[in-house]
């Protein structure tokens, strides 16, 4: 049995998406910038994709920019806004538990003279809006907060933060990295005070190599990629038509059954966590106090620390049974770099290297979860027996 529980890393492409993409690659392969009919046909796919996202996010078509993925979207939002608004200030705010696409871009901006404040998080991975309020200055040009944390599934108070930012400094831009959240939670930038929003195709059963950046029409931003002037000069490069069309198709399909799917994901999460709790020496990370069933956290992510077993070993032990999960910390034996998120939420050192992440998708079944739980019941006692002494 193959059980894929690493859907926060990437997902299986919906068959309808793959079909559409094959058709575009083999038949409607024109370059949307070409003047002839073949180009016009290709352009239709772009228009349709833009239309879909505009509808799903309740924004204007003009505000959708396609990129090569979440990382490019994040880079563009941060660097593009920091450079274009340099005259307004040099201060940026983010959180301590962002994805490396944000954290390392912030480090780059620090190296060219910007000042960055990293907001701390509590034991559940949430920022306090009070900290945000205190960090805001007249120089703050941009705040970037992730919607859903990729490692523990913590949700940030996005709408609250959006309101606060706009009240304190209407010129401060608000970027949200929604790579993990898009498709799992309803996000409406205009209602939440969001100026820029990143999303990625392959996390929602679309293809790899495509993402989007919502850019509110009043946002001052400059390109980070130069060339032929595609996408209103903001993002040059021949449009990735099959990728963009596939991404849009995946999003449409996901939103069709949105309510049922999210409900089912929460059920899976509760079921799985109940099963985990039957084991000894385990700790589920990020679950809010008084909300043991995962309310207020992402529906698809369960982070578990298993004392006495190194995460990489447990990962490979589960892999032997066809179960694919992720080591919660990207920690390698000779280069220990415990995850920033797990450190930030104060996980004790021995557990840092013993944390694995399960992430579900619409394909996940209860049967698969039972199979996984059983494998853990069987293997963990054996793995605990043999350790470094």
């Amino acid at each position: 049995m193959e059980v894929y529980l690493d859907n926060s890393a990437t997902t299986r492409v919906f068959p309808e998406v793959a079909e559409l993409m094959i058709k575009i690659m083999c038949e409607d392969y024109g370059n949307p910038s070409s003047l002839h009919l073949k180009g016009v046909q290709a352009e239709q796919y772009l228009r349709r994709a833009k239309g879909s996202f505009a509808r799903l996010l309740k924004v204007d078509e003009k505000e959708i920019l396609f990129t090569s993925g979440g990382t490019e979207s994040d880079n563009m939002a941060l660097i593009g806004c920091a450079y274009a608004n340099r005259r307004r200030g040099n201060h940026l705010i983010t959180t301590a538990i962002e994805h490396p696409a944000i954290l390392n871009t912030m480090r780059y901006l620090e190296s060219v003279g910007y000042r960055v404040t990293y907001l701390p998080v509590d034991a559940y991975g949430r920022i306090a809006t009070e900290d945000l309020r205190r960090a805001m200055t007249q120089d703050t040009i941009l705040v970037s907060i992730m919607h859903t944390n990729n490692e523990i599934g913590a949700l940030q108070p996005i709408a609250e933060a959006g309101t606060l930012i706009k009240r304190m400094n209407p010129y401060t831009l608000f970027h949200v990295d929604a790579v993990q959240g898009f498709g799992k939670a309803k996000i409406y930038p205009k209602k939440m005070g969001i100026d820029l929003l990143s999303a990625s195709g392959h996390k929602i059963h679309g293809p790899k190599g495509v993402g989007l950046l919502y850019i509110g029409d009043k946002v001052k931003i400059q390109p980070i990629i130069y060339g032929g002037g595609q996408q209103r000069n903001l993002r040059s490069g021949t449009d990735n038509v099959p990728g963009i069309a596939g991404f849009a198709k995946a999003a449409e399909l996901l939103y069709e059954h949105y309510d049922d799917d999210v409900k089912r994901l929460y059920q899976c999460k509760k079921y799985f966590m109940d099963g985990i709790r039957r084991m000894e020496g385990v700790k589920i990370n990020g679950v809010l106090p008084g909300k043991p069933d995962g309310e207020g956290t992402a529906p698809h992510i369960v982070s578990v620390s298993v004392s006495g077993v190194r995460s990489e070993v447990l990962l490979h032990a589960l892999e032997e049974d066809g179960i694919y999960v992720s080591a919660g910390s990207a920690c390698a034996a000779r280069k220990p770099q415990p995850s920033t998120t797990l450190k930030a939420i104060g996980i004790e050192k021995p557990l840092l290297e013993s944390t694995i992440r399960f992430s579900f998708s619409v394909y996940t079944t209860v049967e698969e979860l039972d199979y996984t739980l059983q494998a853990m019941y069987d293997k963990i006692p054996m793995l605990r027996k043999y350790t470094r002494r």
Partner: protein
Amino acid sequence: MFTAFLIKYAEIGIKGKNRHLFEDALMHQIKFALKKCEGKFSIHKSQGRIYVEAQGEFDYDETVKSLKNVFGISGICPVVYVEDEGFEKLCDTVVRYIADVYPDREKTFKVHARRARKDYPKESMEINADLGEAILNAYPEMSVDVHDPEILLCVEIREKIYLYSETIPGPGGMPVGTGGKAMLLLSGGIDSPVAGYMIAKRGVKIDAVYFHAPPYTSERAKQKVVDLARIVSAYAGPVWLHVINFTDIQLYIHEKCPHEELTIIMRRYMMRIAEHIAMETGCLGLITGESIGQVASQTLNSLIATNEVCELPVYRPLIGFDKQEIVEVAQKIGTFETSILPYEDCCTIFVAKHPVTKPNVNIIRRHEHNLDEGIEELVKTALETKELIVAE
């Protein structure tokens, strides 16, 4: 401009009646090395020399790079071939050759002609003098030095005429395959690929054994070892890599023996298994990357303990090397970047905080008795389930 290479070899020259065996092995290795290069080549032996001739288009840089990996080659001379169209024409060609190869001509030179075709109208000495004159006439800034010239221009008169003057140093050593075969204990680390390289350099063909321990070591750790074997194969020819699943043996030792001795006893079993495969496959020795005192299992005391389980000689070419010296070779041969990828190998996963550094062989033997017959069964299974990967 260059269309052929004259291959110089050092030690083969002194191998007496076995010489042709060494030459044939060298040609075989050259053929293997050039398989991955663009272009077609003919390799032939003629009057005690090996020539590599390109048949049509080829990539000069790539070809030289590949030849530089072939053990047994001491030097590679890029050769220009010209048709014999009379001596005047030859003078022109030589003058042009000098211009092309030496943009800076403030140099001393000497012409060294060899006449393999004795019906050529001029004798060697005459050719030397006349070509020298032509060069001096064309480039007054050059001068002749017959004792210690900066440029030694060789002119060989055969069916065609060969011109060469530059020698690119080769790796030296002996052609792989002339020295038998040995079994390398290949981990994912920095040392063992270097050890394999050094023994291969002496003409020994390399087989390898890797111990992997799923789920404690990952598929990527195994892939890394395959990649290392492949890099070594660029020098040593195809490497047969035997992969042994070592998990159960390791866990069993972990259970039955004192933890401080785990590594030593584990290594004793690795040596036994490696030797078993070595004997089955006709290997004449084992190779390890050990260097005295580098880790607890590589002290002289520890080496006694791991050495005594084998009948075959164990070659340890790095025994007197410092880590930095090993790293330098690893960087030179291109294994370093792969070796430092951070995947755990089976030697480190259960390593004790304070492993014994001066094990007493008698005590180790006694503790090994705890393993009784159980271990034999596990070793048997490990050997039966071994996987063979040919890295090339």
